[in-house]
């Protein structure tokens, strides 16, 4: 399978979505899909030169720092993949409330619970995603019950919320997590990984000086290859024209946070709802493209924050002529 191809549920050679001008599209896999997707993740990337990556990172840090300096007093601005894509897709409708309140729900928790469950399955500690989810939930509830004081190594962030739910609410959390975990667990042939992959793991964070603006890079799987890594990302919905930005964003945050050596060789995106699989080789042109998108989104979000603070409408710099699109 060629790099950059879209791998989808439609097998053999069938056009699935409108092709990107610079990428083959629609070359698909033969069932079983998990074998092909695993090959796509684990294949050694071609030799690449990341000449200019350090300079790109330096330039982007400076641009983001300048935007951060424009932020009005109040909470800082964190940009994750969801907020990035929202700002790119709908810059004129972007709003970043200073009091964005976080309300847990089964759908919000399913990734956190599911990732822990898949990790158990891959390590052989649980026999199925459903069993693993039950064990993860029980352990977290137990930890939360016994916790006396805040502890960074204590129960996960959702445990206290989960603990106070009635039985029907807890079952809803388990059901969402089982479905999510089953999708990730069945996406790969885990016994073909020579080295144990990191399932979930810590997000990459990069912050401007003073921490006023932060980027959060999150991936579901980090596979160790010879001399490099490959990321796998589980995404919502279906793969639209921003798929390169979606997959390239965690690679860019790795560059900013941990330097050139941390940049993965490729990122494999999985959209379970649509069955779409995308493979993004990470190189300098991709990193530049994603950096442009991040800057446009950050400008949009800063403008939204300024508008919110002043109460006066304000044009969004990320809108209009500088609307980056992947295709």
């Amino acid at each position, binding site marked *: 399978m060629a790099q950059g191809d879209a791998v989808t549920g439609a097998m053999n050679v*069938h056009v699935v979505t409108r092709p990107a001008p610079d990428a083959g599209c629609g070359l698909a896999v033969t069932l079983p899909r998990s074998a092909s997707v695993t090959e796509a993740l684990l294949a050694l990337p071609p030799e690449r030169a990341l000449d200019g990556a350090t300079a790109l990172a330096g330039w982007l840090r400076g641009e983001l720092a300048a935007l951060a300096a424009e932020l009005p007093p109040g909470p800082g601005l964190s940009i994750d993949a969801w907020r990035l894509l929202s700002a790119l897709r709908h810059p004129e409708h972007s709003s970043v409330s200073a009091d964005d309140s976080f309300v847990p729900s089964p759908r919000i928790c399913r990734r956190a619970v599911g990732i822990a469950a898949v990790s158990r399955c891959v390590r052989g500690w649980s026999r199925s995603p459903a069993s693993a989810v039950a064990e993860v939930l029980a352990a977290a509830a137990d930890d939360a019950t016994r916790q006396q004081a805040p502890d960074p190594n204590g129960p996960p962030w959702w445990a206290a919320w989960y603990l106070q739910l009635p039985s*029907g609410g807890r079952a809803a959390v388990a059901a969402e997590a089982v479905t999510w975990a089953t999708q990730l667990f069945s996406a790969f042939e885990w016994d073909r990984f020579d080295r144990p992959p990191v399932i979930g793991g810590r997000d990459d964070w990069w912050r401007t000086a003073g921490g006023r603006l932060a980027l959060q890079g999150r991936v579901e799987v980090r596979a160790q290859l010879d001399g490099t890594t490959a990321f796998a990302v589980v995404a919502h919905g279906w793969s639209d024209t921003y798929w390169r930005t979606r997959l390239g964003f965690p690679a860019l945050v790795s560059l900013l946070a941990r330097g050139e050596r941390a940049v993965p060789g490729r990122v494999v995106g999985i959209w379970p709802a649509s069955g779409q699989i995308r493979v993004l080789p990470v190189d300098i042109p991709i990193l530049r493209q994603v950096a442009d998108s991040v800057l446009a989104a950050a400008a949009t979000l800063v403008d939204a924050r300024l508008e919110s603070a002043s109460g006066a409408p304000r044009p969004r710099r990320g809108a209009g002529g500088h609307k980056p699109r992947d295709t």
Partner: protein
Amino acid sequence: MLDRLRGDGERPVVDPGLAGGLRDWLEVGLAERLGPLSDDRPVRVTKERLNQVLVCEAHLAASQEGPRPVTMELARGSLVDAAFRHWITVGRSDDPFVDALAALDVAGDQADVVAFVEGLHASERAQLAADVAHHAHSIASGWPLVSHRWLPRTQERIEVPLVGGRVILTAVVDLLLGAPAGERASVCLVEVKSGARRLEHRSDLLYYALLETLRTGAPPFKVATYYTASGDIDDEAVTEDLITGVLVRVLEGTVRLVRLAGGAAPVPSPNPLCAWCVGLPRCLPGQGRAGTSIPRRGRLEDGEESAHRAPPAVSVRGAG
């Protein structure tokens, strides 16, 4: 019941060209009949909207004019769906009504149903609770615990983009059983119904089967509708003929939905359901069919005229 859903024969071999061929058929069919589509909001196709637009475009348009009205039947259906999911996930429930209501409450996306239930008079609420308990008892009697090795997953969302994402075929499947397909089909789809058996339920299932085929590249080997009130299950082996048959229906309905989304005037198609249509006061053809301009309330009762009530198909009573 689980033996029936899993089947005892050899599963069908997956045709590696089927999914791509189906997709090409849809893509080409939409392109030929609709021409270039705008970049406006994508048209989302659901089983409900397909059914409505194929029965009567004017009915679909009328039903979308206001917020979804919550009725006792809708609330019961949502609660029974939640009770079924609870049972499949946990395998026990001390109070199905309380558990189901808590599940809807914490999910947050059915606040209208939760508010409706909480606003009921005590006697109505007690009746609804008893109703849900009856359905939950039927579920518990008919469904043994599903082995985790079958990878049961509930309320799984499917979204299939077409024509560059301008049309999205969507579904939320109540229950999927079986690991992803390899050389042979391996997945069974189950839809849960708390109401009476209706003709469109089979079309709903085949719509799901089509979407699963497009999503994964392999059709499910079986689809089933489980009726919680009676414990009956209608199951059907999926064949390529069935899938291609439903594709024609989906294509026709999608073309109509796209045209309506583009501003075309809805075409009324008088039918036995006109008497219940919220658009009846403004629809002369419908009034001619219904004999009145005042829509009826409530649901179809046994013995009333309906184009949608279906006889039992392949049916078995769920055994405990």
